[in-house]
C-alpha cells in the first residue's frame, strides 16, 4: 500500500493485554494541575523498568472535573492488578498528595484500586472521610489545607504496545513526522503515548547476546549498523523512530494509529518519510494484532 508516496508495509503491530486506570488530578489552576500530573506520570515509559506506563490523556476544564477546578486526566497501564495498585499508591502519594492545592479523583468505573484508601493514614488520625453521592472521599490534613482524594479508582482490562515505526531519509524528517502524528493522536481519548514526547528511538528486539538481558537494540533498524547486521533499511533510509500506544480498548489504539498514520501520510514522501512499518514478535506473544493496512482501510 502506498499513500502519497509513502509505503505502508503489509505487517502488524503486536500488543498485549494490560490493566489500566484513569486518575483525575485537580488544582487551583491548570498550571498546578499540569505540574502534579507531569510528576505523577514521570518515569513511566515502559513496564519493563518503570513498573507502569503512564501519560497525560487530556487537560480538563473546570466543568469536566468532580470539584469544579481545572484538572488533568492521566492514564496508567500495568501488567497486573497488583503492580498497578502499587504504582498508583506510590505516584499519587509522592506526586499528587505533595502538590499544592491538589485533589485526586477516580476517572473510571471498574474493579476498585486503592487511591486514598491507604494514603489516608498519612493524616495520622486526623483524616476524615465523607461519603458523597455513594462514593467515599478522604480529607487528609496537609500544610496548605486538606488533600481531598477518592477512596478508590476503577481498574479495567486494557491494551498496551500498539505501535508503528516511521522510516525516513533523515533524522529531522522522522522527528517532524512523529511530532505531527503525536499532535493528531493526542486529540483522541482513552490513549496515551508513554515515551518522551510520545516518541521512542530505542526500539528493541527480543533477546540479546548477554544472557542477563531479555531485550536489546533493534539492530535491523539501526542505521549505523547497516554494514554489520542483516539490515532492514534501504540505502537512503537514515533514521527510524517509533510511536508506542497504550489504550483502554483495541478500538482506541486502532483509532489512534489511524490518526497518526494519516497525519504522516498527508504530508507525502516529499517531507522525507519513505515508509511505515510496525513492530511484532511473529504474532505469537501478544493477543492483539493491529495490521497497518486494516487500520488505514
Amino acid at each position, binding site marked *: 500500500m502506498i499513500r502519497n508516496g509513502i509505503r505502508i508495509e503489509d505487517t502488524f503491530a503486536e500488543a498485549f493485554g494490560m490493566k489500566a486506570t484513569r486518575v483525575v488530578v485537580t488544582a487551583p489552576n491548570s498550571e498546578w494541575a499540569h505540574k502534579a500530573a507531569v510528576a505523577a506520570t514521570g518515569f513511566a515509559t515502559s513496564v519493563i523498568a518503570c513498573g507502569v506506563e503512564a501519560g497525560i490523556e487530556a487537560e480538563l476544564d473546570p466543568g469536566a472535573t468532580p*470539584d*469544579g477546578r481545572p484538572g488533568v486526566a492521566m492514564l496508567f497501564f500495568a501488567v497486573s492488578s497488583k503492580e498497578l495498585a502499587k504504582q498508583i499508591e506510590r505516584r499519587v502519594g509522592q506526586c499528587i498528595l505533595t502538590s499544592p492545592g491538589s485533589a485526586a479523583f477516580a476517572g473510571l468505573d471498574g474493579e476498585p484500586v486503592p487511591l486514598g484508601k491507604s494514603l489516608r493514614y498519612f493524616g495520622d488520625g486526623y483524616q*476524615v*472521610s465523607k461519603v*458523597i*453521592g455513594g462514593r467515599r472521599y478522604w480529607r487528609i490534613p496537609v500544610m496548605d*489545607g486538606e488533600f*481531598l482524594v477518592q477512596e478508590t479508582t476503577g481498574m479495567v482490562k486494557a491494551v498496551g504496545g500498539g505501535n508503528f515505526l516511521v522510516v525516513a531519509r533523515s533524522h529531522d524528517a522522522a522527528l517532524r513526522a512523529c511530532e505531527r502524528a503525536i499532535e493528531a493522536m493526542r486529540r483522541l481519548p482513552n490513549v496515551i503515548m508513554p515515551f518522551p514526547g510520545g516518541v521512542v528511538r530505542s526500539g528493541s528486539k527480543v533477546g540479546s547476546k548477554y544472557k542477563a538481558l531479555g531485550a536489546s537494540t533493534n539492530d535491523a533498524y539501526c542505521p549505523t549498523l547497516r554494514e554489520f547486521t542483516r539490515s532492514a533499511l534501504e540505502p537512503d533510509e537514515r533514521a527510524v523512530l517509533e510511536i508506542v500506544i497504550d489504550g483502554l480498548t483495541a478500538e482506541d489504539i486502532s483509532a489512534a494509529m489511524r490518526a497518526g498514520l494519516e497525519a504522516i501520510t498527508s504530508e507525502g514522501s516529499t517531507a522525507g518519510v519513505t515508509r511505515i512499518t510496525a513492530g511484532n514478535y511473529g504474532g505469537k506473544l501478544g493477543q492483539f494484532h493491529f495490521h497497518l493496512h486494516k487500520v488505514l482501510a
Partner: protein
Amino acid sequence: MSWRLTLAKRPPVPLDASALTPAAVAGLSERAVADLFISVGTQPSRVGDWFRLAPTEGDVLELDGETGALDRVGAGLRDGAILVAGPCGREAGLAMRGGGLVIRGAAGDGLGMGLRGGMIEVRGDAGDGVGSAALGERQGMRGGRILVHGKVGARCGERMRRGEILIAGDAGALCGARMIAGTLVVLGDMGEDLLVGMRRGTLICARSPRALPKGFAATGTWTPSWLTLLARSWRDLPAPWAHTAQADVRVERAVGDWRAGGRGELLIWPGLPAG
C-alpha cells in the same frame, strides 16, 4: 402494578404500617393484599379492615386518607418507593435500608431513626429525633439521606454516624448533639445546645448561630473543594437544594466539641440558599 391504600377511618390508636411495603404487595391480588397482617396498637388486624384498595400503574405504593394515624411507615424498607399523600405518625422510615419514602405532609417524631440507606423526603415539618438512634441502639442513622422541606424538632441528627440530613427550615434544640460522623445541613435557625458533645462529622449552616457552641473554636475562612462535590450531588434534588452555588465554597469554620474529642466541624456557608 401497585396499590393505593386509603385509610378510610381513623383507628382508635395509631396503626403500625411497617408491613406495608412495595415488596409485600407486589404481585398480590386484591384479596391477598386485604388479608395482609397489620397491627393496630397491640391488636392484630387485616389491611382490608381499615383500607380501601385501588390498583395503580407503576411500582409506587401509595398511602392515602387518614395517614396521620400511620406509625412506622416504610420501616425496614429495602427497595421500592412509598408515597404518603398526607402527614404521617411516628418513626417513619425507621431503620430503612434502601428505596424511597416521600411524605407529602408533616412527619411525627423519630423520622428516619436508625436509617441505613435510601432516601426520605418530607414536604412539611418533622418532629423530634430526625435521624437519631432507634430505641436500644447506640448510634443514629448510618447511611442514606433525609430531606425535610420544613422545620424539625429537637435532637435532629443526634448521634448520627453516617449519611446526610438536609433541613430547609429551622432546627430545634440539641441539633447534632453527640454526632459521631455524617453531614447535617440546616438552612434556617438552630436552637439551644447546638452540637453539644459532637465527636466528628459536619454541620453546615447558611446562617451563623447566635453564638459559637460551647466547646467550639473558630479556625477562620476556608475553601474546601469537597463542598463543590456535595453541592453537585444535590443537583437532582428539589429546590432549594438544587440551587446551591457550586463555585463559591468559602466557609467560616469552627471545630469542636473539645469536651468530646473536638474532631467535629461547624461550617457557615453563605453560598447555601436561604432557609
